[in-house]
């Protein structure tokens, strides 16, 4: 191959390589800026990813859903229609195979608990944190959960066209990374 052709092929490769992270940013920005904000009640624990660093895994109360449909199979794509309860937290208004008219999130059936109850995995269960803060966040949450004045910990999520972007995790009314710093003092 001539140098010129090689260079053109390389330029195409380089553009594709750049476009993947760029497309990821675009999708997330659109959802975060234009999407409706929902608060998902959550509980954080702290694991590790070899490439992306430390994060807290969020476990949501909305992950167990009751349904009248007994034919769901593990691995199936499902859409959860979203609504808000009287306190302003997100709640599931329905689980279907078709995209709902209202705001919804795309998810997958993780496994069936009973014929009328399924477990789903919400697509925003990781919140990446500075490496020293992630383990502290888990401990801080453990202490906070035992307090008398406990207010639900929640994930602030932007939702648009089935995409969801986790913007922040709020504990005691403040972002979890600030809460960890406050606890240090």
């Amino acid at each position, binding site marked *: 191959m001539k*140098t010129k052709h090689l*260079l053109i092929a390389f330029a195409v*490769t380089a553009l594709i390589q*750049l476009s993947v992270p760029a497309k990821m940013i675009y999708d997330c920005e659109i959802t975060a800026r234009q999407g409706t904000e929902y608060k998902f009640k959550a509980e954080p624990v702290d694991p590790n990813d*070899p490439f992306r*660093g430390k994060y807290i895994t969020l476990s949501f109360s909305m992950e167990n859903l009751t349904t009248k449909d007994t034919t769901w199979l593990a691995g199936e794509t499902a859409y959860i229609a979203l609504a808000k309860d009287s306190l302003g937290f997100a709640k599931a208004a329905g689980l279907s195979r078709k995209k709902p008219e209202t705001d919804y999130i795309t998810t997958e059936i993780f496994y069936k608990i009973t014929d009328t109850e399924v477990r789903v995995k919400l697509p925003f269960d990781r919140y*990446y944190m500075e490496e020293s803060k992630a383990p502290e966040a888990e401990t801080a949450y453990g202490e906070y959960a035992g307090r008398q004045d406990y207010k639900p910990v929640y994930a602030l999520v932007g939702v648009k066209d089935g995409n969801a972007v*986790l913007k922040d995790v709020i504990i005691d009314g403040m972002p979890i*990374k600030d809460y960890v710093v406050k606890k240090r003092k």
Partner: protein
Amino acid sequence: MASIIKELNELVANNVISPQTARDIEGYYAINKEPQGNGLLTIFGSLGAVLVGLGIILIFAHNWDDFSISTKTILAFLPLVVSQGLAAFSIIKEKSSVWKNASGVLVFFSVGAAISLVAQIYNIPGNLGNFLFAWTLLCSPLIYLLRSNAVAVLHIVFATYFATEAGYFNPHQPWGYILLIALLLPYYLQQLKQERNNTTAALNWLLPLSGLIVLGSFLDGAGTFGFLIYLAFAGLLQSIGFIPPFSDEPRKNGYLTLGGLSIAIILIMASFRWVWREVVTDAVPGIPFIIAWLMLYGAGIYFSFLRKGAPKSFEPFRTAAFIFPVIYLIGNFNSLVPSILTNLLVLALGISIIRAGVARFDFATLNFGLTITAVLIACRFFDVNMSFVVRGLLFIGVGVGFFLTNYFLIQKKKSNPKTTNYEN
């Protein structure tokens, strides 16, 4: 080299040399353009780039809280753009393979770093398998564009990482692995024809090793039929090891050695009685598994016909691999007969390897045969009820056997110094 190529055009234009001669000269320089000593520099340059790339990823993984999203976004793209610039520069200026390999490796890790950092900024969970697959796929053109063995090595390593992550730790079969390996094959075959350097030899070891690691991730649900598929694959590797160019250089022949080793390990595992108790009760394997086995077995036999050269000491492995299916068939009806037959097969394998080692004055082969026999005897201690005294005596017997056979071979070699020594 660029100046010579330019002059070639002029010489062809003035009818001094024929276009064919010009192509031959061009081909010659394409293969032999690297000065001596550059090979080592390429390896260290690439290793340096691997460390720098991994360092960048680790620094990003710290997660810098104080930076704004836009600063982090710029940081995500910076290493990628810079390393792409270096790679483009080495293509335009036709730089040495040191440049091409090092910049290729940097681009490889920068792609991973960029995707990782964006995922971190926007809290994208994504599963590790998909991430590794996308990353490796995005970088696969670099192997061809930069003619980089270092990127080819990374490609195999990351394809294997992806397949183990997606296949062993998740319920899905990692079909993407087949695609990734298929993308590499044309380059690999070309390298085999053109170059005989150490990095091509590294690929000769890495590819079969990767296949052996990943194969199991496709065998979920195959039950004990997996033994047969693994053995057919190991037999195929051996058969490939018997054809040129692999058969010319035993030390650069991962196919022969890894294939032989795998056959020995699988057969020793199959010599346990519990395996055959399971074979009897196992359901008939699914059609896809039977097709996969037939294809691997058939390919193994096909390559056997193409064999040329290669040390004969490896022949018994292949024979054992091709006999085993008959024993497995008997195993569907009875558990005692096949376990006895497998034990005899491993024993025969061990003894023939020892004989081949003695006949060729080859200590590596001799001791490999002795090890197979010793491991077989040791394994029988787990499922045969024997008195400790008998076990002890057997162990002493095998140990003395090791000393004596090696001693006699040394004596024999001393009295016959002109013999060749193949150490496989």
